[in-house]
């Protein structure tokens, strides 16, 4: 098979056949075994396995040796979900944990449980697996009793063996099902194990993946190889929407192991037999691009956001008549505006993927959080049938949302299609920082009115966030560049947690959905709820101060939620909160303070409260967060150590985002393209974190990957106010902004 790859030849070199370039490329393709990571390559000979969400066989298999395989559509993004899913299944089936293996995010094998986002893996994905396991357990108990010739009610199961409760000979799962199909619909009412009998769920089980990760034995996406694989690098446009005018790879052809280019529209990639050859070629190839300068002036970003066309307004919460309440004569009024900068995901390992096409079927290995969705997007881009595309999850560097993994997968898929060979695409650092989709800029306006006793009469908030087209997906960059079919990009910013938990008599929360936003928008950890909770909880602090009430007391007074109140009281005890703590007198140039923030995530799930202790250098404006206290209630805890790890990570990452991080750009492109221009928090600035977990074994388990982040920015802002009297209303709280705010006082 020999094909001409480029849509058109190089503009300054003769048009030529791709596979003659370099003369060394062997075109024959062998169906070689994967060279690494057997875990992630499924047996392709076996008959198709069901991936139906309502079938036990969608989620579970038990082989003749009694080993359990869990098929999870939710994937471990470094959060410990793989271990948690194994715990849930092992517990519900009553088998030892080491007998359970988890296959994740393989579109051929795992049910589509939705994107791994929104802190939904345990609460939705894990509960689907729990219900499937409960259904299987009931069936195995019945079958075991029948085989043993005893009454169903007289048997129990322990370590995968069904046996009479009174003692006697049992029969193991392997014998009962032994690799066969359950052929059972998941019973939503299948009796669940009583949490008081748990021996695996709720325990701080060590994570399955860690020994391999600390010894170099783990196969990350970046380590995954296919035989005969080419390496590719994408050559990026000069500006976000430049057109490729000409290119010349004459000098690349002098490089050893150089293969050629793939060009389609404005998509240009260079290929090598070795990774270094592809990198060297990407630095050697000559390109000319059209000028484009369509980005807003960063120094006027908020004016740009405020003046962006509004496609529609929407009331997100309406209680009483806020407009009328705000006009109350003699009321004390408070107003404030907040904004939250554009952030990048900042994965430590830039995105990477491998793709190949065999007999017209495309397989793509990717660290995508959304393999089922990616499959549809790639199929659309390449005008293939989704059934002819298989996406297989291989864990990569943490992504914290929809970063560049999917775009790298699409790059690899397109190049594999164009070359007919397996292809590995690795993004470079400047690709990840410069071209992954961004958390959009968000702007808020608030007003409140208080009576002379400090009661809130009315509360109104308005948010300016990008509108949401109908598709959930973030458009594939590859498809945009190559002018191939693609979806409209989903903005990623989310209205959740903008509505408030407080019982004010008049509330109005309005979203101004914006028609445009400067960068391809995406979700980044705690999307929307991070920005919304920053603004809400900062303004609550401002209103409490105007009312002359302690911030903790103010929240408790206006909450009608015993579970929330219990959490706040646990937090106060953890941090030894002193009511109406006056500002601590600054010692020398350093002022110290503490601030509080609270959220009930999306108003329907995980409760988090946090107190931040900060030191503010009054001269330099530099803020150091010295300690974070977190009280956390996500219902039933699956793995308390995994949960603590997540909470600590949420705090540290969000302290970084709050104090330091801000995308920079000129009129043409992102200019913060490395760790020097987009710095993140380093070890010496990391706060100590104290965590109080409230476990509720008999309640539904809720998510924990995001909610703690939501309370971090406001806790810091409120602590800076407590220390200095200055209100920080614009994230990040850079030294320059802090100095300016202190000077305003």
């Amino acid at each position, binding site marked *: 098979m020999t094909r001409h790859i480029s849509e058109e030849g190089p503009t300054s070199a003769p048009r030529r056949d791709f596979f003659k370039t370099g003369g060394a490329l062997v075109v024959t393709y062998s169906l070689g075994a994967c060279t*690494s990571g057997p875990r992630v390559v499924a047996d392709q000979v076996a008959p198709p396995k069901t991936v139906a969400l309502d079938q036990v066989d969608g989620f579970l298999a038990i082989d003749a040796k009694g080993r359990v395989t869990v098929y999870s559509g939710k994937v471990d*993004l*470094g*959060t410990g979900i793989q271990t948690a899913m194994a715990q849930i299944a092992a517990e519900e089936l009553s088998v030892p944990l080491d007998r359970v293996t988890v296959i994740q995010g393989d579109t051929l094998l795992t049910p589509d449980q939705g994107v791994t986002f929104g802190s939904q893996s345990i609460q939705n994905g894990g509960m689907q697996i729990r219900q499937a396991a409960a259904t299987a357990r009931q069936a195995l108990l019945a079958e075991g009793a029948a085989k043993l010739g005893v009454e169903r009610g007289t048997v129990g199961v322990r370590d995968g063996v069904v046996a009479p409760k009174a003692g006697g000979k049992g029969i193991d799962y392997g014998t009962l099902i032994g690799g066969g199909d359950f052929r059972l619909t998941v019973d939503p009412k299948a009796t669940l194990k009583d949490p008081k009998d748990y021996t695996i769920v709720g325990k701080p089980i*060590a*994570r399955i*993946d*860690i*020994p*391999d*990760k*600390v*010894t*170099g*034995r*783990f*196969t*990350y996406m*970046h*380590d995954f190889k296919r035989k005969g694989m080419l390496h590719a690098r994408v050559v990026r446009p000069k500006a976000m929407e430049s057109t490729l005018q000409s290119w010349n790879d004459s000098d690349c052809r002098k*490089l*050893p*192991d150089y293969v050629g280019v793939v060009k389609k529209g404005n998509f240009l990639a260079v290929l090598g037999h*070795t*990774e*270094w050859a592809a990198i*060297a070629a990407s630095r050697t190839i000559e390109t000319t691009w059209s000028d484009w300068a369509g980005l807003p002036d960063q120094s006027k970003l908020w004016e740009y956001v405020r003046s962006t066309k509004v496609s529609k307004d929407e009331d997100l919460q309406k209680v009483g008549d806020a407009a009328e309440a705000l006009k109350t004569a003699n009321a004390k009024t408070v107003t404030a505006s907040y904004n939250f900068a554009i952030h990048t995901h*900042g*994965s*430590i*390992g*830039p995105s990477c993927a491998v793709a190949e096409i065999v007999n017209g079927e495309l397989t793509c290995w990717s660290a995508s959080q959304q393999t089922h969705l990616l499959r549809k997007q790639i199929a659309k881009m390449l005008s293939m049938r989704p059934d002819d595309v298989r996406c297989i999850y291989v*864990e*990569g*560097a*943490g992504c*914290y949302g929809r970063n560049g993994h999917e775009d790298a997968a699409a790059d690899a898929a397109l190049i594999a299609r164009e070359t007919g060979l397996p292809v590995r695409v*690795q993004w*470079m*650092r400047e690709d990840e920082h410069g071209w992954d989709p961004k958390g959009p800029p968000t702007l808020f306006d608030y007003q409140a009115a208080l009576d002379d006793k400090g009661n809130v009469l009315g509360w109104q908030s308005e948010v300016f966030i990008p509108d949401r087209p109908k598709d959930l997906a973030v458009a594939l960059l590859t498809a945009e560049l190559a002018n191939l079919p693609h979806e409209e990009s989903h903005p990623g910013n989310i209205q959740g947690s903008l509505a408030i938990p407080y019982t004010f008599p008049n509330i109005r929360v309005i979203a101004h959905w914006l028609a445009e936003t400067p960068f391809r928008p995406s979700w980044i950890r705690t999307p929307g709820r991070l920005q919304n909770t920053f603004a809400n909880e900062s303004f609550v602090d401002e209103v409490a101060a105007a009312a002359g009430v302690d911030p903790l007391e103010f929240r408790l007074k206006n909450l009608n939620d015993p579970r929330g109140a219990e959490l706040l009281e646990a937090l106060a005890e953890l941090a030894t909160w002193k009511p109406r703590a006056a500002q601590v007198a600054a010692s020398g140039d350093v002022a110290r303070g503490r601030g509080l923030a609270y959220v009930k995530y999306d108003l329907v799930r995980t409760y988090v409260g946090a107190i931040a202790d900060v030191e503010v250098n009054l001269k330099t404006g530099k803020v150091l967060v010295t300690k974070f206290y977190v009280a956390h209630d996500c219902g039933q805890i699956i793995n308390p*150590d*995994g949960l603590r*790890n*997540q909470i*600590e*990570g949420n*705090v*540290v*990452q969000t302290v*970084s985002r709050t104090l330091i991080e801000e995308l920079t750009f000129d009129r043409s492109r992102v200019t913060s393209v*490395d*760790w*020097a221009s987009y710095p*993140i928090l*380093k*070890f*010496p600035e*990391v706060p*100590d*974190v104290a965590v109080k977990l409230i476990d509720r074994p008999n309640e539904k388990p809720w998510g924990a990957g995001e909610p703690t982040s939501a309370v971090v920015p406001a806790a810091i802002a409120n602590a800076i106010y407590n220390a200095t009297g200055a209100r920080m209303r614009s994230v990040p709280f850079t030294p320059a902004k802090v100095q300016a705010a202190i000077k305003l006082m």
Partner: protein
Amino acid sequence: MKISLNVNGKSVTITAADPHMPLLYALRDDLGLHGPRFGCGLGQCGACTVLVDGSAVRSCVTPVATVDSKKIVTLEGLGSAGKPHPLQQAFIDEQAVQCGYCINGMIMQAAALLQTNKKPTDQEIKAGLAENLCRCGTHLRIVRAIKRASEIAA
């Protein structure tokens, strides 16, 4: 050109078409090691860290030709899952991993640190790892793991 390397106690010869190719690609692509990782290619994040004659070096910006005849140790060379190095064991004990992509650098940097400072304080550990980036926010566990390893080794 042929370049001789001493990696994890073994002598190996690789053929490098370009002597300026960073060591990282020789380790990952020619020798198939998974420990050292590509993070930035700029020496800014530390994910690619290896020991060269006992010092922590950013292999993504170290030309392969410059380490000819030097002793290179990667994460795999410290220990294995069956026989982990005290640092690796301490990272397991403290569960000091989230995605783990940076962890190679954390362990290799810590190995170099503990060679010169056997009993570092928390502040010294933080200062010693100041140029190693972690995005998941595993810092507190990493510090605890290094402290634990230093106490076991002492």
